[in-house]
């Protein structure tokens, strides 16, 4: 089922949580809402579920398969919602938790006892917790609770599955495991799913599409590849992955990053040069294009990649990531002066991408 949000805004008092959001979620896709805390991603998810009401605007609308659901309450929307802290009913066993959505159906739609039993057992198999039916939530681990919460949401055969930071409360190892599992599950079920996360790695690894949000607005919508390799805005570039930031200014028709003049907050014509650590090449000579002289300060070789920290003439700390092979070829020495050449970089002036020349 596809979901279309039109002109959705939400204010809490003076705070604009969402500013005129327009977006379409494709049927059968797994979409990640990615952003820092306070970016409005959870609010957006809750509005889709009907747990929160959007501000009433003239053109505001929520469509499930081109049917408006704006005025239908959460218990009529048939959405499966998975909460960050699971929200399992602690007075019910695992079995009763999963059966809940079936048992509260109106009498004429309620499945028979046997059907409920079969359905719950099927879901328990799906989440690989067949033996836990009689347990209470307090007797399960965090990862198991989250899988039960998912099974419970799936029991009502939701048109759309909504997950609010589903792995946020789990430790790193369980997180990684559940991440892969969720992707596999989605590939078998193909139910339209939206999940909220602040973890870029999680979004990049699991989602078909990523919606990057900041300050209640959408920064970019795209596949993991698109948002990572072709960030539409400075925010997206900074939020997804490590990045070296150089502050400078625009002078006539080029961006200048080689001055020591201290920048003043709010100053006009400011510019920022963004280069990912793995997009910098270390050379012993400057070459033709822009190159930044810097001194090797520290080298960290323990790990899958080599992290080199350098300091340039303006005392700026710069990170470069190299493969071990590359590092061995360059034969860097501490305090050696080298030149850094960006293979790929982006310059932003004020709030827009800058396509002109720059001096580093």
């Amino acid at each position, binding site marked *: 089922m596809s979901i279309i949000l039109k002109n959705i805004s939400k204010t809490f008092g003076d705070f604009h949580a969402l500013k005129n959001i327009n977006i379409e979620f494709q049927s059968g896709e797994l979409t990640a809402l990615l952003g820092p805390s306070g970016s409005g991603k959870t609010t957006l998810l809750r509005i889709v579920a009907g747990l929160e009401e959007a501000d009433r605007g003239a053109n505001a609308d929520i469509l499930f398969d081109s049917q408006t659901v704006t005025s239908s309450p959460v218990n009529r929307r048939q959405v499966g919602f998975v909460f960050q802290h699971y*929200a*399992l*009913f602690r*007075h019910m066993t695992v079995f009763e938790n999963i059966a809940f959505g079936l048992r509260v159906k109106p009498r004429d739609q309620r499945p028979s006892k046997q059907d409920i039993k079969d359905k719950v057992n099927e879901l328990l198999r799906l989440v690989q917790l067949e033996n836990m039916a009689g347990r*209470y*939530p307090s007797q399960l681990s965090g990862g198991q609770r989250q899988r039960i919460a998912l099974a419970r*949401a799936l029991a*009502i055969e939701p048109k759309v599955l909504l997950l609010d930071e589903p792995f946020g409360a789990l430790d790193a190892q369980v997180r990684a495991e559940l991440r892969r599992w969720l992707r596999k599950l989605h590939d078998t079920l193909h139910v339209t799913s939206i999940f909220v996360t602040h973890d870029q790695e999680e979004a990049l690894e699991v989602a078909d599409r990523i919606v990057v949000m900041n300050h209640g607005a959408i920064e970019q919508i795209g596949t993991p590849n698109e948002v990572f390799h072709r960030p539409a805005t400075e925010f997206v570039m900074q939020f997804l992955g490590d990045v070296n930031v150089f502050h400078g200014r625009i002078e006539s028709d080029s961006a200048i990053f080689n001055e020591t003049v201290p920048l003043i907050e709010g100053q006009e014509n400011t510019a920022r040069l963004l280069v990912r650590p793995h997009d910098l090449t270390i050379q012993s000579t400057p070459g033709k294009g822009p190159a930044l002289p810097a001194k090797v300060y520290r080298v960290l070789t323990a790990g899958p990649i080599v992290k080199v920290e350098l300091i340039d003439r303006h005392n700026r700390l710069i990170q470069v990531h190299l493969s071990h092979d590359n590092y061995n070829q360059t034969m860097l020495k501490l305090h050696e002066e080298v030149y850094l050449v960006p293979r790929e970089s982006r310059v932003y002036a004020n709030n827009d991408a800058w396509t002109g020349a720059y001096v580093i």
Partner: protein
Amino acid sequence: MSFRFKESSVLPGFGLSLGYTLLYLGLIVLLPLSALVVKSSELGFGGFFRTILDPRVLASFKLTFGASLAAAAVNVVFGTIVAWFLVRIRFPGKRVIDAIVDLPFALPTAVSGIALAMLYSPNGKLGIFLQSIGIKVAFTQLGITVALIFIGLPFVIRTVQPALEEMDRELEEAASSLGASRTQTLTKVILPLLMPPIITGFTLAFARAVGEYGSVIFIAGNMPMKTEITSLLIITKLEQYDYAGATAIAVAMLVVSLALILLINLFQSWSGKHLVR
């Protein structure tokens, strides 16, 4: 492995403070209470049961426990509603209302006793009105129940209120997203989760009502066999210098009270097993 009474600690004063605690506890609480046990044993097994199975005593038990049960039940219903009001509904001056709930704890029982008697007497403010619709409260078992409702009123409210405050609203959202109506969410999720505090509040109100004296005697009329509560009967026996008889009745009452406390603890530890978050 040798037996260790106490884990080692760098903090001083353990011997002194524990010694003082035990001495004081022994002198003020345990010694007098043991007098109760010894005195009742003077009667012997047969005498003990003859005393507490006397029709007048039995009638007082029936009245005391019956009225206490009724009052606690009324408090469960209205206490839960008041707790809901205090937690879930916006209302001006709620802090004052919240504070006034504790009045039955703070008001000396003799004062509440004469106030209730005056209020419900045949020519009292509420008495006149109730009389006109054929309900007699003062000097009846109903009057005793009214007094017991008053003194037990804060218990259910004060146990349910924090539970309702701390209840995770996500649980209600979850129920709702799974298709439950508001009524279904209330009966299948909220009330079952409130059950432990409700039962605790009920038991506390009941235990308090069983032993209540001051707020009841003024409104009760104190007719033997009809409106004579157990506490009053104990005093009557004492005034007749029937120490052993008074003690026997007191022991019977105490046993029930202690059994109740045990029941609360058992219930709480049982429900605590899977109801912890």
